[in-house]
């Protein structure tokens, strides 16, 4: 196969090159050389983006599995496989990201033997580990289908109910526990973001992001891999996203009301500016847009609303992880370029692996279980062969 350098391939190579250099700095010169973290800011951009956002952005997997297999929303069936693939890759990359952030990553397995049952971090770690295994099994049928191994597929289908229930249970636990991590810092995290309700917020936002990311990813893949967009799927997701955003917003308002902050959040301050960005991106833009039927029926506008919501929730997590501590610490946290570079490398790897999986595995083909019509698969094949471009 001849290698043709396209614009995106060039971008990918540059990102990977810089990322590898940054990895060298990280592992051969230490965290101090590769990041701007310090005794004042022991957790920086990596915890905020790679961990908090990474896990949240991978929530589409459990949301779609829940919708289709638990609640039997048959309409959403076409998006389950890509959502599970995104989640599986997302968690793998999250674990890779963690290996960069941990001071002694070679001891990560210590969690298994020196268990501290009181630690939220221990719970998150165990859940993420188990859930990644569950995702692996949910993803495995793709490989078996490709290899045309019938028997292992039936085995996995036999344990599917267990995988589904376990996957959603584990997701509920660790998505919310990522919020619980911050419960022990009442004196440090700014009151705009510190609330006893953090675990609930983290779970509720994960569900909303799961929906928004599925819309984003369906539209994106349709463009990249030349597939037909399933409009009824998007319309269903858009409607659900609107409900999820309203639930999130009402929870936030309720929380601010209870803690007497409703007036405070409108007073200009450093934290308020970031809160406003967050609220406008997460709620004002997408809720206004999605309230119009015209938007919910237009793939393009739906895409825009979802991207806005996703960016809003990313802002929220970064506010919690970084901005919310700046007043307490007394100075700003500005990540070093190597920090961005490694995060970018993770994201680029995600896109690359997704493209690879789509190219070689029947991700977008109907499941054999549902009696795929052969012509459709064949028709899709020429489009898929460009997947790696």
């Amino acid at each position: 196969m001849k290698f043709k350098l396209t614009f995106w391939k060039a971008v990918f190579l540059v990102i990977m090159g810089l990322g590898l250099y940054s990895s060298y700095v990280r592992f051969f010169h230490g965290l101090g050389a590769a990041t701007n973290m310090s005794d004042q800011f022991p957790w920086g951009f990596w915890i905020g983006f790679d961990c908090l956002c990474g896990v949240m952005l991978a929530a589409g997997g459990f949301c779609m599995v829940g919708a289709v297999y638990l609640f039997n929303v048959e309409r959403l069936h076409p998006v389950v496989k890509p959502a599970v693939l995104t989640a599986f890759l997302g968690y793998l990359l999250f674990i890779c990201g963690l290996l960069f952030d941990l001071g002694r990553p070679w001891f990560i397995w210590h969690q298994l033997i020196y268990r501290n049952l009181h630690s939220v971090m221990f719970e998150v770690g165990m859940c993420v580990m188990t859930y990644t295994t569950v995702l692996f099994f949910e993803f495995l049928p793709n490989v078996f289908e490709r290899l045309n191994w019938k028997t292992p597929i039936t085995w996995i289908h036999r344990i599917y109910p267990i995988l589904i229930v376990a996957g959603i249970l584990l997701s509920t636990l660790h998505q919310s526990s990522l919020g619980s991590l911050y419960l022990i810092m009442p004196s440090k995290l700014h009151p705009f973001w510190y609330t006893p309700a953090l675990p609930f917020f983290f779970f509720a936002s994960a569900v909303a992001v799961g929906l928004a990311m599925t819309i984003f990813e369906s539209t994106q893949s349709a463009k990249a891999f030349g597939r037909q967009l399933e409009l009824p799927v998007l319309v269903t997701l858009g409607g659900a996203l609107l409900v999820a955003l309203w639930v999130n917003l009402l929870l936030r308002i309720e929380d601010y009301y209870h803690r007497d902050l409703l007036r405070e959040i409108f007073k200009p301050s450093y934290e308020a500016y970031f809160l406003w960005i967050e609220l406008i991106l997460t709620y004002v833009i997408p809720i206004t847009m999605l309230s119009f039927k015209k938007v919910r029926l237009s793939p393009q506008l739906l895409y825009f609303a979802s991207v806005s919501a996703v960016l809003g929730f990313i802002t929220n997590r970064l506010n919690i992880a970084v901005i919310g501590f700046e007043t307490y610490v007394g100075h700003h946290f500005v990540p070093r370029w190597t920090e961005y570079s490694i995060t970018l490398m993770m994201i680029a790897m995600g896109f690359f692996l997704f493209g690879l999986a789509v190219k070689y595995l029947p991700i977008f083909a109907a499941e054999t279980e549902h009696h795929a019509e052969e012509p459709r698969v064949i028709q899709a094949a020429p489009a898929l062969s460009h997947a790696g471009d």
Partner: protein
Amino acid sequence: MSKALLYDATLCIGCKQCEGACAQQNHLPYDDAIAAEPVQSAHKYTVVLTKNDKYMRRLCMHCQEPACASVCPVGALHKTEAGPVVYDVWKCIGCRYCMVACPFNQPKYEWQSLNPRVRKCIMCPDRVAAGKQTACAEICPTGATKFGERDELIAEAKQRIEQNPANYKNRIYGLNEVGGTSVLLIAGTDVEDYGYPASPKIGEKPMPEYTGRVMERIPDFVPLWTLVLGGIYWISHRRDEVAAAEEAEKNGGKR
């Protein structure tokens, strides 16, 4: 009974001998340049701060219920019976949750190291176990840092304040803060001026309770939620099965 340190800022003359003794005890470098550093770090577990010719020591508070120990996923930190909060470096994975969780910002990190450790005052656990006092208390020429039983030190602190109310602020910092600490401070100035968090800000509730409230619900939540999820699965698939069976029956009837 657990051991503790009482630091009386009114007795401190700022000689920094505690800093030097601490460095020696923990095999850390110490010279004039390090003595002049006004912050704690991976190579300086304790520091004597100066403000308007008044002194204040900072060191790990050795909380009765330490946040660092409760958050550590691998239990690398724990409070010993005798009082010190100690660190088992061979367990540590380097997540630094102890650092962000500590209300006093005591754990420091070896940011430049390729195999970094968390560093903080560990209250000379070997000396304490051998019945000796900590290195800093032993060397202190004025008795500003005093080692002893926590209860006895509290009684003594109260007595000193009572006997000399003009010299002291009427409070023992560490008596009830975050559920009480094994380092107690009395001073003529506000400890907050030297970077200690204000008492109302950190409260009197032990830090582990903030996350404990959530963690203790998990054992109940897991079976309950499994049951709910399994139930939903069963109902929604049962509906399909019934529909399929009815369909089959109808078709069968037609034939």
